[in-house]
């Protein structure tokens, strides 16, 4: 993608949509403050499904070293925003 008019709000919306699709839950159940480890029912395979979908959607790379720092939905949105607007 790499669009310059992309906003953080749009990314949050899209990330939640992809996440809900992977977890097969309603997007309404996901909020920005939720924690990947304690609040979201990801198993490791689903987590990588989600990561790869986000990578492909925004044409960015999210290596494990970067993901180590990600704790909440807000964190992943920040990382994606930083990489997608470049």
């Amino acid at each position, binding site marked *: 993608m790499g669009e310059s008019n992309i906003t953080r709000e749009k990314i949050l919306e899209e990330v939640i949509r992809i996440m809900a699709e992977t977890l097969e839950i309603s997007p309404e159940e996901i909020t920005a403050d939720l924690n990947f480890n304690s609040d979201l029912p990801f198993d*490791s*395979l689903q987590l*990588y*499904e989600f*990561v*790869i979908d986000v990578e*492909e959607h925004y044409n960015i*790379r999210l290596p*494990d070293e970067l993901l180590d720092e990600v704790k909440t939905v807000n964190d992943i949105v920040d990382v994606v925003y930083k990489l997608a607007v470049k």
Partner: protein
Amino acid sequence: MSEALVRIFENVVLTEEKSLRAGYFNDLSIAEMHTLTAIGPYDARTMTNTAEDLGITTGTLTVAIDRLVKKGYVHRERDKRDKRIVRISLTHNGKLACRMNSKFHRVLAKHILAGYDEADRKKLLDLVNEVDQYVEQQLKRYEGSENVRATARQVAKDTTKEKK
């Protein structure tokens, strides 16, 4: 020491093999998983470069890629400008398998290091890097060598000399 090294090598491979069999990607062999890792989850690669990285011929890689394409892990296409070049990349499932395998390695390393404090970790990593470099050097001696047995004899001879 030599027994422990061989055992570590064998057990890591065995654990990886067993975890593959028990996991989501039980239709992949370890060799196939390593082929996916060599291609990598991002850019498309040429057959030649990937074969070089794996230390195999392009003929051997072609057979492996045929299987991985059939299983749905690899996508293969001819370069649009130069039809002689074949580019391979991972499908969504291929990327998933590759990343899950990297995670296996990371978790293994994390658990091994968990029992050590910062100073010991550094020491251990330095030692492991030294062993890695030494084994790498030995491997390089076989590159381009047609007579593997002769090279192996020479390596054994030199190692004995070094010990003396």
